[in-house]
């Protein structure tokens, strides 16, 4: 796992073909002095919610009824305004930062414990693969009893980075270049389809 000081060092290697990129760049002095093993990420300005009234269910076997953009309401919250996350509600958000990882680094997104203690959980699917480029989609839930006001720009989660055996080639990971929350595709693979098939 990279220390905050190592992350700061890797962020300062513009000459490198593959630096770690976090834009807007965190305050490197603060990062070095934090003594942590992660870098804090901030909340972005885009939020998406599923429109429950239009979607009957999420069924990975029924492609004709896939939950896609038709069922998503996307909202832009400018800096200075707030998004109210009520108790027991779920919203997709996005990091303010655009991340690009090189071939030999992967990451994990973890919520900040201070927020967790107030009921806000961040991200359940936390892996960030090598060569990822884009803003990270965050799954935010308020599991507490009090509405939480979300302000774009506030620190909301932390990114842990690890050295990994480098991947080959120059390929990017599956999710490329998105600045807004992304649902991703849900579908069964062949193995699961075989298991589900009636004999």
């Amino acid at each position, binding site marked *: 796992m990279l220390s905050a000081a190592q992350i700061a060092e890797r962020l300062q290697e513009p000459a490198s073909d593959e630096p770690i990129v976090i834009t807007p760049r965190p305050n490197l002095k603060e990062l070095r002095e934090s003594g942590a093993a992660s870098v804090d990420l901030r909340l972005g300005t885009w939020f998406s919610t599923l429109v429950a009234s239009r979607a009957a269910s999420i069924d990975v076997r029924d492609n004709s009824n896939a939950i896609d953009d038709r069922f998503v309401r996307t909202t832009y919250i*400018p*800096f200075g305004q707030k998004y109210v996350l009520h108790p027991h509600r779920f919203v997709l958000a996005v990091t303010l930062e655009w991340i*690009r990882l090189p071939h030999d680094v992967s990451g994990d997104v973890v919520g900040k414990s201070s927020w967790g203690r107030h009921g806000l959980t961040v991200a359940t699917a936390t892996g960030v693969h090598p060569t990822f480029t*884009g803003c990270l989609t965050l799954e935010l839930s308020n599991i507490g009893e009090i509405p939480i006001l979300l302000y774009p*720009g506030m620190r909301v989660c932390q990114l842990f980075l690890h050295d990994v055996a480098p991947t080959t080639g*120059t390929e990017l990971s599956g999710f*490329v270049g998105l600045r807004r929350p992304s649902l991703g595709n849900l579908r069964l693979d062949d193995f699961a389809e075989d298991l589900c098939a009636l004999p």
Partner: protein
Amino acid sequence: MLGVVGSLRSAEYPQKHAQEAADAIATLLTQRRAELLAIPSDAGHEIVDAFCRAISSELADLLQVVGFLQRSRLSANPFEVYDSLRRIAAALFSKTQVRVVLSTEWEFSPYTFPAASVPSLPDYVFIGLPASEAANMLLVPLIGHEMGHSLWVSERGDQQYDPAVGSKLYEAIKSRWEDVQRLFPFAGNISQLFTESSGRARIQRLASSALSQCEEILCDFLGLRLFGESYLQALAYMIAPSWPGERPLFYPSERQRAEYLVDAANKIGVSIPDRYLERFSERGAPPSPVRELHYSLVDSTAEALADSLWTHVDALVSAAKLGLPTTHQVDEIVEELTKVVPASAPSSLSAIVSAGWQVMLKQNLWTEYPQIKDRRGTLNELLLKSAQVLEINQRTVR
């Protein structure tokens, strides 16, 4: 209408000035309703009718703005550029404190209600982007043209250029006096054409069209002066080679617009895309000798004023301290975009869009990344994020 008032007030507007406009309209409608109710029951029909006519006219103006504001909330809008555009407008219209609202219109081209065109909201500039490409960052330079219409209003372009248009039109008519006499029957001499009421009535349409052409040229110059080469690219994307059919007299031809821009670009060292003028073609010949004469007189009048219009725009933009980006500033962004990351320290919106066009036109862009299926879409995401980074950097300067 009371329902409209309620929905206007309660809606959320990502753009600050849209919220302010909505509040202003809601307040105005409430006030008008109170005024209507306050008319004494014994007031004469004439008074009631006059009041109702005035309010109906005001409503007609405002309702189109209400629709515009509602569409300004759509997530298809390029919200990330709003802060930068607001700053550009604030610098450009420092005397009048213009407020800007971006929205979408189901129009092919960008569209505007310039400042003062909605009497109840004189300080607002409403700019509608084509709904089909509202979030296309590469077209942002065209907003510069639309802002030009408000600049024309705030600079009182009609009054300022009217005498010069008259003078240049006089010269144009003089140079083709024989044709004018043959095709534009008028018993008097050329001076009487401009001094007698029957003569002035005949040339009023020509003068008015020439004035409108001047406004369009000024708008193009503002787009160029604010966005440099990227304006040239965006304009060509939108209007080249030309529209079919006969052009309106009050518009320069697409080819003429391109020529004016190339001349101006040369004056300030803006690079001109390869074979730029070849991308524009002239429309067919005018349908009659009379129409040809009209075009000739109006076009040559506007052309004679193009240099003055450029000088005017250049001085205003210089005074507003809105410079074009340097090659180095653009190259830095190009390098980052090529690595599929947004600009980390963009100097201006103009630098971002200029870099965007350069990357867009690169041969073999991102061919080493087969995962990028939609190159234009990915580039657009990077450009919008870069615009947000610019906003963040400007807000957090300490």
